[in-house]
């Protein structure tokens, strides 16, 4: 039976959105949380009726926004709906994203009981000055306590998000957080470099010169530091921005990178099924209304052509340690990539950007930083 990943979008944030974030989230709709959760459960039922029998669920991810701002019991109710409407694989991975300031013992215990088996904390940095500068709501102390609390409650699979290239960030700051993570034996780390998205507070601040971000070279140095320290501690880079202990790779993300199928619930959720990508409305009220009228709140549908899938499979496959399986790739999309892209592959491999080993095309460790340029040559 086919497997499927589920994504649940929780579009609420505590007091304010972070200055760099442009995902769908609201700070003024706290009063509507219950209404939203009801709608989510309804959407899960609607989808369950359609697809519940055809798939087994391999992973579930509560993302946001900030899922941990939901009131006590809400995650549990969503989990119950999921279990009633879909069949889970025995080793299903279920993650909740959590911001340190919202992580209470009560909530973490609730998650554990509800079947959540993986916690992902948005820590970003342990420098209080920078945390404030980028509009985060928590302190370094709160972040440390949250991770410790999760361990105490009994979560074994803990992931921490950190960011590189933040305003005012130095190599020393990066070392500080990585050392903490290693000490705590956190078994999964996502290290993302800051992307200035138009329309965010930070984009404007950097543009007018109110904030300065580290240079290209400095950010690369930070990545190298993260890589060195984590790999020494046994966390291997299995994707551009992701590091983990053996067998603690994030199944949910791996499914995305393999062009696996997934369904997303909630405002602004993007799903991918039967070679088709479709997206829910980003409008909160429209989402609720649509569900209340028993119709899917889908606003865009795109059937991917073979060529688009081919390109995406290169784009996503090269992000991973595994790389592109040449035989599988040729079978799926036709042609012979080694022949079709002979010149480019020779160029890239002779310069050490990629390697061809065991029937896979892989990006070399130190070439991840120029991944986009490599992708552009191969598509």
């Amino acid at each position: 039976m086919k497997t499927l990943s589920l994504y649940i979008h929780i579009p609420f944030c505590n007091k304010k959105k972070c200055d760099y974030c442009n995902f769908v989230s609201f700070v003024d709709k706290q009063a509507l949380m219950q209404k939203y959760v009801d709608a989510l459960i309804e959407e899960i039922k609607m989808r369950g009726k359609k697809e519940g029998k055809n798939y087994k669920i391999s992973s579930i991810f509560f993302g946001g926004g900030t899922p941990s701002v939901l009131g006590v019991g809400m995650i549990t109710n969503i989990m119950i709906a999921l279990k009633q409407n879909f069949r889970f694989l025995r080793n299903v991975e279920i993650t909740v994203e959590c911001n340190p300031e919202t992580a209470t013992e009560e909530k973490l215990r609730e998650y554990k009981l509800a079947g959540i088996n993986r916690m992902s904390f948005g820590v970003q940095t342990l420098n209080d000055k920078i945390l404030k500068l980028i509009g985060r709501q928590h302190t370094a102390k709160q972040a440390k306590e949250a991770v410790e609390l999760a361990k105490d409650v009994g979560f074994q699979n803990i992931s921490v998000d950190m960011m590189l290239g933040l305003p005012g960030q130095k190599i020393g700051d990066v070392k500080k957080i990585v050392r903490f993570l290693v000490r705590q034996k956190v078994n999964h780390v996502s290290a993302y470099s800051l992307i200035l998205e138009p329309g965010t507070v930070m984009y404007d601040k950097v543009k007018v010169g109110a904030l300065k971000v580290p240079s290209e070279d400095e950010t690369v140095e930070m990545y190298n530091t993260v890589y060195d320290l984590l790999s020494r501690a046994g966390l291997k880079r299995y994707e551009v921005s992701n590091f983990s202990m053996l067998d603690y790779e994030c199944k949910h993300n791996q499914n995305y990178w393999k062009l696996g199928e997934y369904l997303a619930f909630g405002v602004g959720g993007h799903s991918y099924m039967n070679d088709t990508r479709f997206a829910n409305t980003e409008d909160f009220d429209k989402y609720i209304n649509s569900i209340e009228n028993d119709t899917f709140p889908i606003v865009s549908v795109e059937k991917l052509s073979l060529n688009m899938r081919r390109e995406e499979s290169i784009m996503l496959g090269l992000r991973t340690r595994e790389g592109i399986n040449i035989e599988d790739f040729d079978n799926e999309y036709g042609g012979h990539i080694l022949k079709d892209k002979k010149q480019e592959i020779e160029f890239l491999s002779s310069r050490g950007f990629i390697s061809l080993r065991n029937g896979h095309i892989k990006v070399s460790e130190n070439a991840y930083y120029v991944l986009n340029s490599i992708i552009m040559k191969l598509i």
Partner: protein
Amino acid sequence: MNELKNIRNFCIIAHIDHGKSTLADRLIEKTGTLSSRELTEQVLDSMDIERERGITIKLTPTRMFYEYNGEEYTLNLIDTPGHVDFTYEVSRSLKACEGAILVVDATQGVQAQTLANVYLALENDLTIVPVINKIDLPSARVEEVKKEIEEIIGLDCSDAPLISAKEGINIDKVLESIVTKIPSPKGDRNAPLKALIFDSYYDNFKGAVSLVRVFDGEAKTGDKIKMMRTGKSYDITEVGVFCPSPREISVLKTGMVGYICASIKNVSETKVGDTITFADNPTEHALEGYKDVKPMVYCGVFLVDGARYNDLKDALEKLKLNDDSLHFTPEVSTALGYGFRCGFLGLLHLEIISERLEREFNLDIITTSPSVSYKVFKTDGTVQEISNPSLWPAVTEIKEVQEPIASVTIYTPPEYVGGIMELCQNKRGEYLDMQYLDKSRVMLKYNIPLCEIVYDFFDGLKSRSRGYASLDYDVNEFKKSDLVKLDILLNGEKCDALSVIVHKDFAYSRGKKLAEKLKEVIPRQLFELPIQACIGGKVIARETVKAMRKDVLAKCYGGDISRKRKLLEKQKEGKKRMRQIGSVEIPSEAFMSILKLDD
């Protein structure tokens, strides 16, 4: 009314911005040829580029009626383009007139263009009526400027109309002067037709339309005519005058200005300066002064999106319909793909054509560095005219190279003379003469290689004189010169589009400048990229673009792969605009910034 004595053919000459077009508009308005409402519409109809730059490219003749002392006069205004690139066209327009109104800005005085055109007018025996414009401005110095005109040009300014074209002050005085001072045309009505083509344009329905001044005889529909230079014959299908839009009339008589249509397919058959006469009963001698206009400046024109080659070809052909001075031949560049080598009258002409290609035909073009045409004497005894650096022969095949030399006249306030002389010297100028025309004006004469003028002379002149100096030039000889081809190598591969011909003494500094500029504009590649400037096999300058450290490490949250996908699409779009030279990718924009004229 068609009596010769009641016709006045005149033009207006002025330096750029001295108010020629405004005065022309006022005359048209004052004589009631067009109402001010129609006038605005008419102005709006002309080319955008002309209006934006405040210069006139196309010649638009206009017939006006004016009553003076109870008699009605036909005034034919023949407009002239006010730029050095179009000197020949100006001279032909002047030939069609008996007089010229000289407009001088009361705040600026006599400028190079003013003088150049005055001399042209005097050569054509025109009566010159000085008019002092912009007297309404607080900075106007009427008496000084009058004196300047009298001293420099030798024209009596005692009763020159003092006007403000903008405010409509004293326009009547100008019209009066036209009638009383400019002589009426002369000619023999009974002689065979003799008409001068001073301009032509292409009309989709009528074919090539010749704008003419009739010197002898008359022309009407059905007459069999002959172009005396090309020798081709045609039947006249229509004659008419401009009011200012074309209006058909029955006969175009001696002394008149108008147009002749004869189902001519191409403006290359209606050459400016040619004489139209009867095919069966021709006039004895063609009018003097005809020149076959040759391009002075060349450059390659390529496309950002190479797939639109045919659109570029169509666009150039369409422009050529109306502009015989535009030359083009197909060219292939390893760096820029398929394009055309184009020849222009000068830098302004080049810029105008480039802008029209972009605006009117919606093409994103890349133009290579402008060059001139060299005479290359080869060791095998042959002589080649070469305007394209990529066709330059190997050093061993060259016996001697000759380059076109411009005789340059510069007018400047005295305080800038030092700087300008230094500039001319730096540009391999040969000093000829210097005259203090008055307290505030110096005339410098130099011989300067045309390629130096085409390179960046204008900018240098502008910055050294804070914009006060003006320039006029004419090319009339070729001289032996020590020229070499400077190549640019990217990652060891020659980039033909960046090759230039330079004087040996400048090769080093030019090569260094180019390499430095390239370093600035070429984005980091996946590898370290050496940029070399070479002559023959010898590297004379080198820069390095460091390898890229990091490109966008995009996140991939929440299954929102479509966000990543968008980024990919954007990059793919960007790749289309990339030019590939060996393993180096260069955005077209980078090329443009290197090749821009003002580098």
